[in-house]
């Protein structure tokens, strides 16, 4: 959906509060599961929950969900280069 050129793009307060509740629930899930021995799954859960929380903040609070494509592209660009950094660096260490 393309954003409307209206006065106010901000989502409703209700959506913000729901997002905040979701973030706190995810935080509790992260702490809770950290105390359950799951092996490698623990790391996956930790990082997976962090990614979901970061996406919630960026899509809702930072308005990426209603931003123009060029703004989304700028947001993705930073993480794209970061991904290259991680892939090329870890490719060496992980395969030693």
């Amino acid at each position, binding site marked *: 959906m393309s954003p409307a050129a209206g*006065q106010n793009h901000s989502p409703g*307060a209700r959506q*913000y509060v729901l997002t905040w509740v979701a973030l706190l629930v995810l935080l509790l899930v992260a702490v809770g599961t950290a105390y359950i021995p799951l092996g490698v799954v623990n790391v996956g859960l*930790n*990082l997976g929950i*962090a990614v979901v929380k970061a996406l919630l903040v960026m899509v809702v609070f*930072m308005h990426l969900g209603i931003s*123009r494509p*060029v703004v989304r592209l700028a947001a993705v660009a930073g993480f794209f280069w970061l991904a290259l950094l991680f892939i090329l660096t870890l490719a060496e260490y992980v395969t030693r």
Partner: protein
Amino acid sequence: MAPDAVVPDAPQFEDGEQRRSAATLGMWVFLATEVLFFGVLFGGYAVIRLLNYDAFVVGSHHTDVVLGTVNTAVLLTSSLTMALAVRGAGLGQRRDTTRWLVLTLLLGLAFLGIKGVEYYQEYQDALVPVLAFRYQGPHAQGVLLFFYLYFVMTGLHALHLIIGVAVVGAMVVRNRRGHFGPEYYIPVELTGLYWHFVDVVWIFLYPLFYLVARV
């Protein structure tokens, strides 16, 4: 009663909407550089953790998970109040905006206070590299690396938050002076983007330092 927003002159833009779009895009480009700025540290963390996993388990056990979790909740809540401040500014609700901005500022200060308490505890436990590090247990070298990363990354994050608190303070003053209204609130909006970005950085720092292996 309240004066209209003082819209700084910017003849290069067709209209307010184009101006907002340009400002938002510029802010996101800056944030992309910030992603890479913090990103190299996260990359370094990944490599050092791969090579010293056992030491990271030990190091993580020496962090205060209760204070760290409370602080995460504080920062997530400050993002809510910041989002509501930006919304209020866009709707021209000046008083509400001031209130949300002040609340955001106080939550930011609360985060910094709690972080300071943690730093002090770690100083007393002699876990601060360079200043006072006397950990002699197993994996001492790796634990030293863990705490180097811990202080550099959380310290850099805290520095960003201090800047954020200062900028939010400036927004409170400008909002009270009536600089913003529905037709112009770009500075509040960009402050919000910065604030949420600092929150996103912490969202990743939290599990990497506090939750490495709690069992």
